[in-house]
């Protein structure tokens, strides 16, 4: 946040223990999968095998199936890898190197925060 705000309220972090991708899927996610399965049936090409959604029991398995189907229907929604600016020291060195005509430095990619 660049601008300074007068009224700022702190929001507590969610504990890491809240995460459980092995949690059994709720009725809601089960129906979400069924809906995508109906679409999968419509899109199935000869020779292709329909996903056996009865094997989807956990949220992780559900998320994998949903990703597969969503990527098929809406590839524009894929997460793009972010280019992260190199640390300041590297930038200074790159600038100095450029001015001396020593060529380019490699860009670096940092790890993404995903919460």
């Amino acid at each position, binding site marked *: 946040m660049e601008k300074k705000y007068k009224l*700022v*309220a702190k*929001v507590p972090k*969610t504990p*890491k223990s809240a995460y459980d991708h092995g949690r059994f899927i709720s009725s809601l996610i089960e129906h*979400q999968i069924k809906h995508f399965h109906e679409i999968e049936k419509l899109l199935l090409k000869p020779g292709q095998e329909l996903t056996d959604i009865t094997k989807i029991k956990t949220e992780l398995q559900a998320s994998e199936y949903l990703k597969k189907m969503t990527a098929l229907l809406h590839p524009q*929604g894929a*997460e793009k890898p972010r280019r992260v600016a190199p640390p300041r020291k590297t930038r200074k060195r790159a600038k100095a190197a450029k001015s001396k005509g020593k060529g380019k430095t490699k860009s670096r990619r940092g790890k993404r925060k*995903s919460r």
Partner: protein
Amino acid sequence: MMENRSFDHMLGGLMKKYPKINGLTGNESNPDMNGTMVPVQPNAKFQGQLDHDPDHHFPGVDLQIFGGTPPRPGRVANMQGFIKSYATQGTGINASHAIMSYFPPERLPVLTRLATEYAVFNGWFSSIPGPTICNRAFAHYGTSFGNVDMNLFYIQDPIQSIYERMVQAGHTAKIYYYDQQSSTMEIVNLLKNQPRIFGSYSQFIGDCKGNTLPEYSFIEPCYNDHPGPGGGQILASDQHPDHNVQEGERFIANTYNAIRTKQELWETTAMLVVYDEHGGIYDHVVPPACEADGKSAPADKTGTAAPFNFDRLGVRVPAILVSPYIPRGTVVPGTEDPNGRIFEHACIPGTVTNFFLKNYDQRTSREKNSNNFLAPLTDILRPDDDCWVFDV
């Protein structure tokens, strides 16, 4: 649009400090399976308390609203069947009392701050006394096309989604799902046929930063826990039991901040935070009658041995309108006030259509006659220093 929490569960505790908010006095109660009256308790937990997903399908909600009286002419709703309903799910007597729990306001610093800083609706109800899919359909289409359940429906009706209406009229609209692993809920037919009206949450954040947000946006939370890119962990933020409620708070705060911290956007955007249905959790307000939308669900679909004519609403849900044009502490009265106004999810396409498209007829009369949820907006812009930002 968030998932499965009732008004009293999330905001009912605010009434002590803000008497205009139609919340809990602390004396509301429900009988348990032993006939013991169990009062509401300010002991709601973020996770682990409702791990047995409370029933919110049509017959379960019927039991919750009517206390177990079967459908017959003249039966009276009493909101006395919530514990009975939860107990039928094999929760045990003590665990069934958890359905009466509510959050002390300080436990939900985001939702309660927005509710008290901007406008909270005392009378926003889910559209159907039933589950997610049919209720979300009202937010997208203004009707569930006669459905009261979770089934995927095939639309053979001239009624278009609000997004299609907007785009066809030369306006812009988008549905932002969280990410591909979470995807969209209920409108997979739109994802298949109209992918251009979709985006991801990170695209929403980018559109806010670039000031390229469409005229109307619908934002979906994350519906499941899954690994994130680069080895991180993405938590479900929908607040559906038993997902962590705090993560939903953070999602709402991030969405608010994305608008709040972009001045041009902040001054031209109204943000509605609303829940699709109550998720089987207690609320004390009897859902009112509503204009029928011309459909009827047969008895074999309702599961109550009686048809449903879409002539009464579901259980009350939290709904908050945010804008710097809303005076602090605005409370929109509901059924507790003779001059109160009733809102439900058909108000969403109803208000958006009336605002952008004016005279548009291809929709139900229920949607057309629905109340305008932008009514709390005034002409007076609050000073920037008078509006909060969240440190997430």
